[in-house]
């Protein structure tokens, strides 16, 4: 019979005995016999998975069984087993509390039992990283700050532009030309000065993402491009941090929670990115200004629920929102066991080169579509006009864009109608194609070349560059 010494506070579970004699060939067997005899002791010593709790050490006479044969350590009848806790600590990380001003500020939260003081302290202890302070980041930053999230990290290196203002409500007209980080920080500090703001004035890259994201409880994806979206996803999975996802285009949006333990990730839904240029960005396809408000606040709602630990989150569900029909639909998502990052045998164990993965050149380089075409600068197009050269300026934008602005003398054939209306064009005449920014006209050049046209070039930068370099009276949109 081996003897087990019972620590004082545990004797309430052993009929007040300070030591117990039990039979067993190994430490595991003796502990098993102990918790069989005193079932209430089990919860004190073992966690839900049946493993010894992290602070529990077992000593055989004077030796820690971890340095012997652990559970299999043989026990003789003359041996004594002791249960000794690991104890440490330190004054860092003081506990959070609310000041009287904060109690007043959050009173409508505090009176709901689902939030209450504990929930509000959870919010205050929480840290959230917003990747992007644009359309989605704007409502996210403002409402999460107002709700009392203690620390908000902002990642953005961009500058506020007039075209941002119809949806990015965290920035105002006075902020045009300022760094988005500056104007977003000012708005957040005005809404709630208790929020600690971390400024990350960088582009999130494979090199810096792990280090930046590691300091937050939650990652919120407010990005508008595929390389960053895959980067945010992979880093969230690798760091085991939920990724609150949202995306918007024209009148439609999506939202879900990725990378929650056991749940799917973005790669389970979209293993491969679309070919470059196939899915237009908001700058190319437009977006209803109100739309990011709806999707951003779905993301903010999920973030708050994850922090509070209440409700049913969007883990495993993709919400699809159609503003025109005013309809929400839902798709079930499952984790893919074959997923290269969150699957059972992951092959991606650190961030990769996402521009290459998405078929794009490294950030800052020219776009693929433009590089493939024979480019001509708007200034040179103007010289050809002034010189009286005979050529056709072909506008491949949509009719409603043509109504916003156009270049005098240009012929409008939308990109999608080129094949159908090719008989309107002459292979002998030199053609310069343009669109808004140069992406669609590069495709038009490729199409025309495939149809046998030789003398076609793409006006670099589109009508925006024309406005910048040639004729500022043409409005930019």
């Amino acid at each position: 019979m081996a003897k087990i010494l019972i620590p004082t506070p545990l004797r309430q579970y052993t009929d007040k005995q300070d030591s117990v004699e039990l039979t067993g060939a190994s430490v595991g067997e003796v502990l098993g016999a102990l918790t069989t005899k005193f079932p209430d002791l089990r919860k004190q010593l073992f966690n839900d998975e049946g493993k010894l709790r992290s602070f529990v050490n077992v000593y055989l006479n004077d030796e820690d069984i971890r340095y012997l044969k652990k559970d299999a350590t043989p026990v003789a009848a003359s041996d004594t087993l002791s249960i000794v806790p690991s104890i440490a600590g330190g004054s860092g990380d003081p506990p959070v509390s609310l000041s009287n001003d904060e109690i007043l500020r959050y009173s409508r939260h505090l009176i709901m039992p689902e939030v209450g003081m504990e929930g509000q302290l959870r919010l205050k202890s929480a840290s959230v990283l917003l990747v992007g302070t644009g359309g989605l980041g704007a409502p996210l930053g403002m409402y999460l700050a107002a709700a009392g999230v203690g620390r908000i990290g902002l990642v953005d290196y961009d500058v506020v532009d007039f075209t941002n203002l119809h949806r990015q409500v965290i920035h105002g007209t006075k902020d045009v030309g300022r760094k988005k980080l500056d104007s977003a920080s000012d708005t957040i500090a005005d809404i709630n000065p208790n929020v600690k703001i971390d400024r990350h004035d960088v582009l999130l890259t494979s090199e810096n993402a792990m280090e930046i994201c590691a300091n937050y409880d939650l990652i919120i994806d407010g990005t508008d491009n595929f390389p960053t979206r895959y980067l945010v996803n992979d880093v969230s999975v690798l760091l085991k941090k939920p990724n609150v996802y949202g995306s918007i285009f024209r009148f439609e949006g999506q939202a879900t929670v990725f990378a929650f333990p056991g749940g799917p990730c973005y790669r389970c839904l979209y293993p491969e990115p679309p070919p470059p240029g196939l899915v237009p960005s908001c700058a190319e396809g437009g977006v209803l200004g109100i739309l990011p408000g709806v999707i951003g606040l779905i993301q903010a709602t999920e973030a708050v629920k994850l922090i509070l630990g209440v409700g049913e989150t969007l883990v495993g569900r993709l919400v699809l929102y159609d503003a025109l029909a005013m309809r929400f639909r839902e798709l079930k998502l499952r984790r893919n066991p074959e997923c290269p990052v969150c699957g059972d045998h992951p092959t991606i164990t650190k961030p990769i080169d996402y521009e290459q993965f998405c078929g794009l050149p490294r950030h800052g380089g020219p776009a693929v579509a433009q590089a493939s075409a024979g480019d001509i600068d708007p200034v040179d197009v103007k010289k050809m006009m002034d010189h009286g050269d005979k050529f056709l300026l072909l506008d491949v934008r949509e009719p409603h864009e043509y109504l916003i602005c156009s270049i005098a003398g240009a012929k409008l054939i939308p990109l999608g109608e080129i094949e159908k209306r090719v008989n309107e064009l002459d292979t002998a005449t030199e053609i310069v194609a343009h669109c808004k920014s140069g992406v669609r006209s590069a495709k038009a050049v490729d199409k025309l070349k495939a149809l046998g046209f030789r003398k076609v070039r793409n006006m670099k930068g589109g009508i925006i560059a024309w406005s910048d370099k040639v004729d500022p009276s043409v409005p930019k949109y």
Partner: protein
Amino acid sequence: MAVQSRTATMRERTGGKRMIKIDPQAWDVMVAHAEAKFPNECCGAMIGKIDGTEKQVTSAEPMENAYAGEQGARYELRPEDLLEADRRARAAGLDLIGIFHSHPDCDAYFSKTDLENSCPWYSFVVLSVKGGKFDHAASFLPNPDQTAAEKEELIWPKS
């Protein structure tokens, strides 16, 4: 993610009021140890008796801070030292009932680090030492999951 566990704290709130009383000779040892180790954190064990919801500390044993790094805001107890203290207490017919440590130039709160590295079986007395002199103290009872700690009434001999 966050520090509070609502089920545990709610259960504890409904429990009886618990208190820990420290005898003068034990208290003097604790304060002297905390002041001597300033500006580092000190640690040690408290020995005594438990009677229902009341604990009485009759002696204190200073222990070495075994934390390997900078000790200004960290402490660690060696399990072997605790095992020895427990044996001596048993031999004297007493019990190991608590752990004490100091917070140099900080208040006597129970930090996240304290909570996550504690254990639910003992009282944790924290002594605030400011500028090398004892300032105030508090006692805490961590919950079984170490996600929250309840404050315990602490009575020490006021000089």
